[in-house]
Each structure stands twice: as C-alpha cells, then as structure tokens.
C-alpha cells in the first residue's frame, strides 16, 4: 500500500513534457468550470495586487504564483470541504485558500494591513487562516507547518473523523528539519495527511540542484516509507488527480502521501526580485509553452461533450468578467477599510489576560506617532 505509486515515483528526471498526461478525473462540467474560475481568480487577484503594490498601497512585499495556478488549485480541489478537510498553504498557494473559501477582499485587506483584515493588521499578505473554512495560516519559518498539520491530522485520527489534511511545501522547504520531523512523525502515526511538494525549480534564487542531490523530490517518500505521487503541476487535472489519489488513500487509512508537483515560478521570489539568476529564455519558454491557464482553457474549449468539456469561449469570458467584477468590489471594500486602532496591538496575546496594559510611558496615549511626529529620517515600509 505504502508503495502504491512506485511506478510514478520512478520517473527519473521528470520534466513536465515527460509526465503522463491526465484524464479528467470524474469532474462534472460545473466543477471543471469552477476550477477554471479559481485559476483565473488567483491570477487576476494577484495582478490587481501588483497594481496596488505599484501604487504603494500594499504594505511590504508581494508574492506571485504566476504560472503555478494549476498546482495549488488542482490539489486543493481534491479535498472535500463538506467533510471538513483542512489545508495549510504557503506563500504561493493563494489559489488553494480561494478554493477553501478565502475571499478576495480578505486578501487585499491583508496586503493593505487593514484593521478589518482577517489578522487585524498583525500578519502580512496571505498569512492567515480560518478553521471553519478549513485553512490554517502559515508562519514564515519554512517547514514548520508540516509538524503542525501532522498534529491536525493526528487529531482527525484520534477522533475517528473522516477528515484529511493537506500541507504545502516548496522544493526549498524540503531541506528544513521541521519538514523531516513532521513528515516522519505523520508517517509513523499514519496520519491522514497529504504533503504536496511544489517543485517550482527555485527557492528564492537557489536552483533545485543546490537544494538537494536527489534526482526528484518524490524519491523522499521512499525514505519515509510512505506513498509517493508525481504529476505535471501545470496540468490542473493532473494535479487534481494525483492529489485525489493521495486524499483517497489518506481517507481510507493508508497514511501519508508525498505528492510532487512539477511546475515553474515565472516571477521572482517576490516583486522586487529581478531574477537575474535565471538562465535566459527559461521564463519565456514556460510562459509561452506551458502556462497552466492557457493549457486548461485550450482543453476546456477543445474537449468533446462526452468528456464533460466542450465549453465555448463565451463561457470562459463570462467567468473572466465575473472574476474581475468580484475583484473590483473587493478592492473598493478594502480601500475603504480603516487601518487598525493602535491599541488593538495589546489585545489577545493570551486568553487570560485578554489584553495587556500599556507600558507606563504610553498610558493614555492612543497612537505613538500621532502625539509625536515621526522624524523624517525614520521612514515607513521598505523591507
């Protein structure tokens, strides 16, 4: 059982074109269109954030998943929200959060550090979660979410709940001790956990070959005694199917699966990164030949009725339009939102006490910078 996908995992030196092409799973027409919707929503939302970033309305850095929409969305789609499945995204998995029900206005408010954003201005970008909708907010320290999700899924097992967890890590994050300890712990406990390794070729500027000497990341499954799956991360149906197998295995008591999705990070680590370390032509090649939305749209348009496809262009265009309207509304709402009240900073470190007292030099002072003008030599954000 634990070795069920040795065949897939043996595909040495896999490159997107060498991966087996996917069927269409058993997705209904509505689901297929919904998948398209999430991919488009992710891309357009990030594009809107780029605009806001250029207008300096975003506080801090901006992270893109351009060209990786198929992997986060396809894999998250394999979970069953009605059963209470839970995932934990990383910085390039905005799409997976949207699939679980995160809303564009929340995301924009987070990026704008607004007081009514999900974290009330405490955490940045997409670092937030909602257990009710089934996603848990990441912290920056890579790898740490793997043990956490091992524990989340351990609780499913202990309570005999029919729930599955999914945690994302990048190729870079597989080098962390936390990844190792977490996946091993979950493997021994046979937790219902899917570990999706998004292999996008880079960790910041570091190419895969400086991250690991392994030929392929799915090989790590062997050392943990767990199942491995590998799929073309730019084929949304393939990522869906590979993850679905893993989710089904987890739900059936088969324990942990490591799913390697092979994709490519077309933008820099964050918006400021000029990607000078990328070999010339590489990005263009992926953009022109292997864009996951282009590929999926083509497929939706060309597929015959029998396969559940055969959409026409106007249906996709209507989705694109709907997405933009949604994002417009979200932007308006976010822009109109207030910044946090400074003293909210003192609330909620503990359940008891629910708030701490201001320090003596701040007693009665509501905002540090209102009372005393910030000297011009002390700017604001520019990490």
């Amino acid at each position, binding site marked *: 059982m634990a070795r069920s996908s040795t065949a897939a995992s043996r595909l040495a030196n896999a490159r997107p074109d060498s991966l087996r092409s996917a069927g269409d799973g058993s997705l209904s027409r509505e689901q297929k269109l919904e998948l398209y919707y999430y991919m488009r929503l992710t891309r357009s939302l990030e594009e809107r954030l780029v605009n806001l970033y250029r207008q300096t309305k975003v506080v801090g850095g901006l992270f893109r998943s351009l060209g990786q929409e198929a992997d986060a969305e396809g894999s998250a789609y394999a979970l069953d929200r009605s059963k209470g499945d839970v995932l934990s995204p990383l910085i390039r998995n905005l799409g997976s959060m949207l699939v679980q029900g995160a809303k564009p206005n929340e995301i924009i408010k987070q990026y704008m550090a607004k007081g009514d954003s999900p974290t009330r201005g405490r955490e940045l970008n997409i670092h937030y979660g909602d257990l009710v909708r089934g996603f848990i907010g990441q912290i920056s320290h890579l790898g740490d979410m793997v043990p956490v999700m091992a524990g989340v899924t*351990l609780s499913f097992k202990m309570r005999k709940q029919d729930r599955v967890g999914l945690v994302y890590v990048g190729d870079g994050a597989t080098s962390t001790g936390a990844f190792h300890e977490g996946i091993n712990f979950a493997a021994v406990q046979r937790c219902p956990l899917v570990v999706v390794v998004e292999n996008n070729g880079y960790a910041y500027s570091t190419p895969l070959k400086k991250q690991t000497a392994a030929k392929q990341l799915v090989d790590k499954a062997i050392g943990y005694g767990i199942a491995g799956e590998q799929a073309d991360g730019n084929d949304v149906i393939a990522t869906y199917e590979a993850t679905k197998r893993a989710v089904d295995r987890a739900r059936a008591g088969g324990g942990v699966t490591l799913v390697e999705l092979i994709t490519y990070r077309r933008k820099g680590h964050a918006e400021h990164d000029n990607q000078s370390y990328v070999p010339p032509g590489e990005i263009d090649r992926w953009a022109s030949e292997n864009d996951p939305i282009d590929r999926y749209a083509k497929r939706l348009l060309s597929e015959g009725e029998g396969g559940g496809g055969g959409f026409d262009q106007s249906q996709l265009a209507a989705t694109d339009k709907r997405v933009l309207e949604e994002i417009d509304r979200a932007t308006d709402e976010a822009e109109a939102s207030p910044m946090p009240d400074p003293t909210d900073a003192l609330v909620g470190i503990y359940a008891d006490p629910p708030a701490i007292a201001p320090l003596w030099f701040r007693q009665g002072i509501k905002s540090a910078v209102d009372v005393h003008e910030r000297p011009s030599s002390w700017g604001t954000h520019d990490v």
Partner: protein
Amino acid sequence: MSEVTYLEAIREALFEEMDRDENVFCLGEDIGAYGGAFKVTEGLMAKYGEERVIDTPISEAAIIGAAAGAAHMGMRPVCEMQFIDFISTGYDMLTNYVATARYRSMLPCPMVVRGPSGGYVRGGPFHSQNPEAAFLHTPGLKIVYPATASDAKGLLKSAIRDEDCVLYFEHKYLYRRIKEQMPDGDHLTPIGKARIAREGKDVSIITYAATVWKALEAAEQLEKEDGLSVEVIDLRTILPMDDEAIIATVKKTNRVLIVHEDTRTGGVAGEITARINENAFEWLDAPVLRVTAADVPLPYSPPLEDYVLPQTSDIVLGLRKLAAY
C-alpha cells in the same frame, strides 16, 4: 491519604486530567511502554492506550508542532521532553509558531510542554539545564516551575486547563526527594500567583524551583545564628510574573536577594530586578542582589558542579550582606 513525592504528584495530575477530559493526551519519547526516562508517565499507557499515550520518534520540533496542530483542533496535548535540555530543538516551533498563534491568527494553542529540568544531579551540561530564561522573552508563552509536590500537581492541572501554551518545568532533583500530602479534591494551583514559602520581615528572598529549599535552609540558619527574619517568596510562575507579590515583599522587608539555579547573565533575576526598580525603588534600603550559577555551561564532575551552582552557603552570605547594608 498518604504522602506523595513530587514525581508522583505530577503523575497524579496526568491521570486526573486524562480522566477528566478525553481531549487530554500525552506524547513524547519513551513515555508509553517504558513510562518515561524518569517513570513519570508509568502506568499511563496501560490505562489510556497507545492512542492517548504516544511514543514518538526523536523529534522534539515535531512533538511540539504536532501538539500545536492538535491543540488547534480542541485537543489538550501534554508533551514530554525526555530531558528539558532537548526543548532547544523545538525553540523555533515554540517561540514562533506556538507563542504567536493566538495573536497573529486567533488560533488557540492550549498545550503543555513538560520535562525534567535542573541540576545538582551530576547530569553535565546537557542534562541539567534550566531553560526558563530562554523563553521568558517570548510573549504568548506561560512558564511555571513548581518547588513543592502540591504545586507540582496543582500547576500541572492548571497548565493542562489553560487556554494557552504552558511550559511546565519540573525539577528532577526534587522528583523523589520531597514528599507531601496532597490537598483533597480537584487541586488547582493558579498560574501567575507566587507563594510566600516563609514569612519574614527583615530580608526577602525571591526564588523558585529547587533553590526554594536552599533559600529555606539559609533562612533558618539566619534566624538561628543571626536572629534575622527572612521571607521566602516562591514565584511558582515565571511568566506572567506576579508583580504584586514581588512588590509586596519589597515593601515589607526593603531588602531583596534573588536566587536562581540558572546562570546569571540573562537569567530571570535581571527581569525581577528591573521590575523592582520600576515599581518599588523608593522602598529599597539596599541594592537588589543575585545569587545564581556562574556563567558557564554546567560541568559534570561533583566538585565543579558544586562550585558553579548556588549553594545554601552562598545565600547565607548574600542575606548577611543585605542585612548589614
């Protein structure tokens, strides 16, 4: 009821809380079949089974991280570090993930991390540590360190019920050396409240954990030999600190000696001194002094360990200096 040791008190707390709440479970290395390196969890697996008493791989970061994940879902995990020294490998997980969960993500993380701590046992540099100062610096964590058997029980029960993460340090020197009759019923020691271990009026000692007993010995000696009345405050909780109790004893005796087993620089005594300065400076008739371990990794050979760790004689010297000030 008969007396129970500090170690048995901890075990009683675990049994009682696991009985009370099915969400409570234990995880750690060798805690199940073997009952733990010090046998604290002996009998637990036999009663509650492998699902609720989990023998884990040697992975402190995963133990703590998995506890956090389970705690998010409403479980009440109690992690054992085989020796508390190994909590260092979970430092990131505790300070960055666990301590901030409620604040940054409104996610409760009610869990306990406990383990044998402290020296005086010839354990050497990696089996004798006192890690409280390393975590004192992290808002979002709570830290308790009981000195008596009844507090060992009462604080662990409170820690398990707390809505946040509590680091529960248990002093291995005390495990089998002290005994006490347990209070009746559902005995809870409140977190955040110090205890007056001995009333006095001339000089105060503020301390916690094993050195509470050395402080009491020194106090007795001073009463006998110098006719001085020494108050001993047992903090019990290190974070959040009981400012009220600290200020009260300063106002009473006007002379304070802080004693801890941990190394001096960056230890808890500094924080206490700062709080006394801020809140009760006018009441001080003498400087706040510290008796602590010397600033070295704790060596293992008896003459070296004895030299490095604070001894009763050191406390006596400190008290005499303060009294004479």
